[in-house]
């Protein structure tokens, strides 16, 4: 069982990681834009990398059997596509010195969303009877409620950007709002349960990436965007929150030592 001490320690490390990431980005911006771009790009390697490693570890733990196995397989595919997207972004910006938006990285960012939706659907499958219409309606209303003002603010700015870039930029907050619906359902569904820590972190992560994508669209339209700017902090938070969420689930369902010993004896 996850003890109270574990939960407190998880939160302590989580807050520390969020604060450290924020401090690194803010200090690099204080030094200069070039430093911010370098630090911003480099920060994606440990953040997206830790999510990738943890999602592969939980996939090994759950396997591909059962609804949760399928869910974690989808989540691992989500983490892999995000890691590929971040790597492509870094290569284009730091090595090829070309504008990474729009680029091949966007293909991988976009294909990560169906995998995340598959994760939610598979995870909810055994408990689908507990999902009420009222709960779904509340989550949909909340998502649409935050999507409309953010799109209005982001798209209402400078018109000197190409239509394709605007549409591509707008797709992200729309997809984020779509994945926010099951994330909110998860928090409510597993309320008071030990798995709820993961769902709360996933929900906060989804909200973070929604804020970051809206800010990205806004800054892109204003032509003021650069990798590593403070508006990107929620992107890093998303990776950290998801990583801690997966880690908490991994710890909750870790293999019992006694069981391992018994299996060794077999």
């Amino acid at each position, binding site marked *: *069982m996850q003890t109270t001490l574990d939960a407190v320690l998880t939160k302590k490390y989580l807050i520390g990681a969020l604060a450290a990431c924020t401090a690194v980005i803010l200090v690099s911006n204080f030094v200069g834009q070039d430093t911010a771009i370098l630090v911003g790009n480099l920060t994606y390697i440990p953040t997206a990398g830790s999510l990738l490693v943890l999602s592969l570890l939980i996939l090994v*733990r759950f396997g591909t059997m059962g609804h949760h*196995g399928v869910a974690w397989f989808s989540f691992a595919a989500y983490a892999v596509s995000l890691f590929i997207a971040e790597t492509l972004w870094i290569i284009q910006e730091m090595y090829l010195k070309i504008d990474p938006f729009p680029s091949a990285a966007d293909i991988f960012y976009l294909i990560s969303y169906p995998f995340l939706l598959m994760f939610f659907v598979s995870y909810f499958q*055994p408990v*689908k*009877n507990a999902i009420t219409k009222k709960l779904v309606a509340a989550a949909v209303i909340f998502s649409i409620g935050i999507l409309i003002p953010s799109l209005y603010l982001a798209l209402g700015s400078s018109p000197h950007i190409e239509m394709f870039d605007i549409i591509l930029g707008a797709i992200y907050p729309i997809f984020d709002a779509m994945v926010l619906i099951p994330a909110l359902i998860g928090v409510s569904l597993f309320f008071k*349960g030990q798995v709820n820590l993961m769902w709360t972190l996933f929900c906060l992560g989804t909200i973070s990436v929604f804020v970051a994508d809206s800010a990205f669209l806004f800054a892109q339209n204003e032509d003021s965007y650069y990798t590593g700017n403070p508006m990107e902090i929620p992107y890093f938070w998303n990776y950290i929150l998801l990583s801690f969420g997966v880690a908490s689930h991994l710890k909750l369902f870790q*293999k019992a030592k006694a069981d391992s010993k018994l299996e060794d004896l077999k």
Partner: protein
Amino acid sequence: MDVVDIQIKKALVAFAIEKALLEMGEPVFQKVTKALRDDYNCYIPDCYEHPEYLKRILSDLYGNAHTAIITSIRNSLHDFSHQEPIQKFVSAIE
């Protein structure tokens, strides 16, 4: 009710619980069996006599959603629900 009859009903209940948990994933099954062992020093077939143990563990783990897992167990036992002990078990975990 004779001993064999009790054993059969215990096995039926254990099968329904294991099926519901394994459908979710083997680590979920392992987690529940470990919690039963650690907290109550018992095993899945013992839930036939102590359904409240299973109910508490599922509630601790899955919060509000535990009711859906219980529904899945109840549905597996549907064909035997006319038998009083099974009916008692189902009512106790709900």
